[in-house]
């Protein structure tokens, strides 16, 4: 029963998406958005229903194969569903945000000619994301993993006539593919050890392979587990845009705003974090891998946050913020605080989706203007957007009481108590990150909503209802969700059946009683104050003394340049690597294929035979005496040969 329900939850968005794609245009917009929203709604309702059932009866958690995908010899690869607390909570997050985005899109895209296509895409995306989180094996994980990548590819390039958009989606796909390559290698490694790709089998037998090693060279061996974890994390780095594979995410903002909210903030990019949590039984056995995760996460958290400080595109700022927050989640996973990581994932999904959608609302209101230097003073014009943005921003910086506060604080708590290698480094990174977060968040906030209206001529008014409703609906969890959920999710054993992590005491060094106590406990730490300090600083810089940022950027010009050029990563990728491979391909083609193989060996042989032929044909001179001479020479040759032969000189 439950299995079939879950299957319906999975298939519904697929079905409705396909329906919208194929016949939506013929029937009409109402049909398209109606049917897709229905699909996601069904999925959401089922998810919630399953959650309730599971909470009531933990026995209902199940892991069942739907069908055998492939069977070769003794190997069997299956497609199946694993429904446990982790899955269900991810399903709810995905479906909820997806639903909000669906509703939001009705208003946001109503003039776009690709309306139906868009709904088809986001529905299909929802399906892909669900199949990723509901999977009970690595294969299906990879299916979903790539499928969300493709939908993201299509959605980033949604406005396909825009050169920048199709450049961005190409880039996104390729960089994701780099991560995917590592992921599939990691999967292959696990397969080569276990001979199966089922989570259950692999996670139950991890102990047996702790001493397995992989020989990388004659003298260097590495623990298989560590290698597997590193490779899997490579996949996560691509999808969750960790340094140095982060470059695609800011560019992906070329897509329509709803998908920035759905894919590039709330769901797809968190797939990496989800996977880390899912793979916790593996990662927990390899401290090396954990440290690596930790380091990458902290670097991402701090460095990408810095970049957000110098951006002027409203969506890009939020995108960099997303990068930074993803860094936080990865850091949490690095210190084994998977539950904190997932908690942050969840709250982040709400408030970041909110922020993006709010940004979208601003963009719509300003007739698709995205440069924050041209904004300002929108507070009074867009009150609802303003308030919801404020909620989102406060949640993002971790203002006490907001959802982000709980998740981020728990996370930092865990980092501070961790003893994993590099945890100290990570701690300082995340602390500085808090300041930076609050700086860029409120820089954006102040520049957009406060100050002076730049262009009085544009008629600015609050967008239509379908845009505002999701904002409000998302604002509520962004503000409140932390209170009831932190306890069970982070400190109690809600995830016990799906994640393997040390007890909450070991992780946080803190005995949790209730959310209020947690809040007061946090107030004794530095995090909250740093965040609030950040608000003041940005108020000072962007409202009071607006010329200081300019001065600062000239004063620290090299640093500023570094930031504005995004640490030259794009330059490196595009002008060094991409060009290198392009040139390599070109020269292999023109030198290797055309010049050496084709012109020299293949056609060269033909040419030489031809030349030989035209030389040899001269033998046939046409003169009888030459012909006769040839015959006589032939005869003479024979005779000479006979004579020599009999005298033993030849053969």
């Amino acid at each position, binding site marked *: 029963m439950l299995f079939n329900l879950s299957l319906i939850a999975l298939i519904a968005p697929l079905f409705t998406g396909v329906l919208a794609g194929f016949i939506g245009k013929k029937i009409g917009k109402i049909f398209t958005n109606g049917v897709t929203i229905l699909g996601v709604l069904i999925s959401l309702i089922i998810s919630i229903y399953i959650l309730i059932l599971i909470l009531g009866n933990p026995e209902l958690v199940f892991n069942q194969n739907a069908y055998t995908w492939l069977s070769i010899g003794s190997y069997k690869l299956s497609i199946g569903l694993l429904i446990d607390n982790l899955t269900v909570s991810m399903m709810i997050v995905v479906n909820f945000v997806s639903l909000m985005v669906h509703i939001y899109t009705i208003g946001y895209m109503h003039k776009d000619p690709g309306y139906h296509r868009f709904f088809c895409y986001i529905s299909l995306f929802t399906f892909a994301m669900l199949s990723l989180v509901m999977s009970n094996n690595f294969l299906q994980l990879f299916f979903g993993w790539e499928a969300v990548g493709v939908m993201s590819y299509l959605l980033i390039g949604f406005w396909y006539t825009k050169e920048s958009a199709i450049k961005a989606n190409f880039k996104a796909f390729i960089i994701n593919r780099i991560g995917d390559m590592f992921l599939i290698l990691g999967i292959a490694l696990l397969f080569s050890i276990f001979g199966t790709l089922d989570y259950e089998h692999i996670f139950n037998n991890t102990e047996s392979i702790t001493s397995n090693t992989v020989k990388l060279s004659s003298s260097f061996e590495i623990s298989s587990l560590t290698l597997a974890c590193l490779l899997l994390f490579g996949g996560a780095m691509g999808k969750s845009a960790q340094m140095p594979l982060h470059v695609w995410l800011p560019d992906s903002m070329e897509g329509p705003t709803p998908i920035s909210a759905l894919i590039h903030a709330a769901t797809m990019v968190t797939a990496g974090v989800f996977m880390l949590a899912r793979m916790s039984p593996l990662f927990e056995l390899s401290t090396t891998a954990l440290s690596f995760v930790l380091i990458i996460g902290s670097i991402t958290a701090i460095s990408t946050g810095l970049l957000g400080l110098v951006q002027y595109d409203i969506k890009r700022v939020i995108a960099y913020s997303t990068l930074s927050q993803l860094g936080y989640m990865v850091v949490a996973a690095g210190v084994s605080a998977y539950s904190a990581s997932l908690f942050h994932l969840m709250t982040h999904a709400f408030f970041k989706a909110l922020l993006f959608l709010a940004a979208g609302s601003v963009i719509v209101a300003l007739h698709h203007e995205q440069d924050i230097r041209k904004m300002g003073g929108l507070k009074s014009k867009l009150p609802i957007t303003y308030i919801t943005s404020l909620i989102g921003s406060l949640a993002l910086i971790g203002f006490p009481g907001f959802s982000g506060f709980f998740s981020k604080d728990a996370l930092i708590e865990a980092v501070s108590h961790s003893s994993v290698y590099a945890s100290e480094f990570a701690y300082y990174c995340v602390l500085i990150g808090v300041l930076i977060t609050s700086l860029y968040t409120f820089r954006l906030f102040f520049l957009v909503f406060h100050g002076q209206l730049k262009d009085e001529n544009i008629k600015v008014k609050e967008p239509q209802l379908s845009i505002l409703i999701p904002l409000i609906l998302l604002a509520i969890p962004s503000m409140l969700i932390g209170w009831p959920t932190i306890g069970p999710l982070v400190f109690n054993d809600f995830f016990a059946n799906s994640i393997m992590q040390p007890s909450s005491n070991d992780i946080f060094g803190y005995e949790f009683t209730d959310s209020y106590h947690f809040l007061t406990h946090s107030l004794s730490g530095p995090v909250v104050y740093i965040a609030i300090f950040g608000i003041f600083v940005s108020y000072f810089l962007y409202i009071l003394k607006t010329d200081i940022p300019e001065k600062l950027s000239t004063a620290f010009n090299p640093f500023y340049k570094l930031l504005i050029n995004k640490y030259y990563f794009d330059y490196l990728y595009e002008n060094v690597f991409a060009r290198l491979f392009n040139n390599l391909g070109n020269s292999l083609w023109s030198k290797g294929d055309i010049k050496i193989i084709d012109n020299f060996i293949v056609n060269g042989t033909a040419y030489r035979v031809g030349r030989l032929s035209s030389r040899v044909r001269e033998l046939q001179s046409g003169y009888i005496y030459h012909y006769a001479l040839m015959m006589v020479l032939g005869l003479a040759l024979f005779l000479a040969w*006979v004579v020599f032969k009999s005298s033993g000189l030849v053969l």
Partner: protein
Amino acid sequence: MNNELTLITPELIIASAICLLILVNSFLTTEKRYTGLIIGSITMATCALISLIFLIETTNSSIFNNHYKIDHFSTGLKFTTYLIALFIFIGTKTNKENTKSELVLLEIFAILGVSILASSNNLLTLYLGLETLTLSMYGLVASKRSSEIATESAMKFFILGAIASAIFLYGVSFVYGLHGTLFFEELNNATINNTIEMQLALAFIICGIAFKLGAVPFHSWVPDTYQGASTSSALFISTIPKLGAFALIYRLLYEAFIANAEFWSLLILLLGLLSLILGNVIAIAQDNLRRILGYSAVGHIGFILIGLSIGSIDGAIAALAYLVIYILMTAAAFMSIEVISTEKRAVVTLADIKDLNSTHPWISLIMLFSMFSMVGIPPFIGFYAKWIILSELINSDMLSIALIGIIVSVIAAFYYLRIVWYMYFEKNELPIMKGSPNIFQKTSISLVGLSILLLGIYPSPIINFCRSIFSPFLLID
């Protein structure tokens, strides 16, 4: 005595036909077309039938005081010759341009020569057969009297042929001197045959044979003659005399001097390799269709010689199979050229067959069969020719020769493909005039063309037939 004459019925019939033709020629004006054709065809058909009967009855005896031998090989070869000649007559002599009776006369003469060659059991008979064949070939080449190139090529052919037969005879004289006899059975004497004198004599004889076959370096006449002679004569020259030359080789090398096989096989191999390589390589640079076929003939002869150089009966079977198959293919090619040539527009160079497919799809298809067959692509019969030779080579541990052979065939493929590409791929501004081949021509060319395909699909008959020629008993197994 009576019995002996029965045994040479085919030869007698041919001889009578010759007399008849001469008589007819004297009394009838040349306007009376087709007399030559009719007489020739009937003669060939009858002879083929009689030979077939002999073949089935496995007649085997020596006649005329052992000068003449009617055995399986000779009847088989004769049967083949007559059959092919029949097709050639019907295919070419029905064309208005080739109705001159003396053409048929000369050709029948040549066939008589081949018959004598095939049956000879004595160096003298052999010589007579050879000269009958050669002399009529000279006439045949020169038959287009008003043509400058025809007479030129005939002249060249004649002089070179004279030299070659002199060289051959010179060798024969030594053989005679050393052995004191002209009968093949008595020549098979290992002690004498291994002397240097005998080897020198053999070298002379092989030169003569090589000329007849057109092997490098005795090939010079081939391309010139193919180009110079009229198409029908070229067709004849490229087919029937080759059978005669094969008989020559078989009778001399395989019967008379088999004891020296080790010696002559090397010479034959050398000739074969030279022909194979040079013939095919030079053909690549040719533009004249008939010259291409000429050089291609040299190349094919190379293959046949390589097969013969194995020195075993299996090798000879393979070589004969190759030869018969080659004759089929080359007949198809020449017939196609003949058919598409019109009085106004002779088909000479590759450019003349541009886009043939659009105007003559059927003829170009047959030409395509023939060309791919010559390349050695299955399912055409030419593939089996190459394959049998390769099999025998590999079987006798001559792998390196086999490799040379196949590499050269790949090179050779180029010029055959070129013919196909001119017919099919090139676009022609001046469409080829639609010739009007008559029904006989069409039928015979279709038969030959289809036989290339059908025998390719089921090659057992031709393989078994060639084997049966060498030994009647092989048919049974």
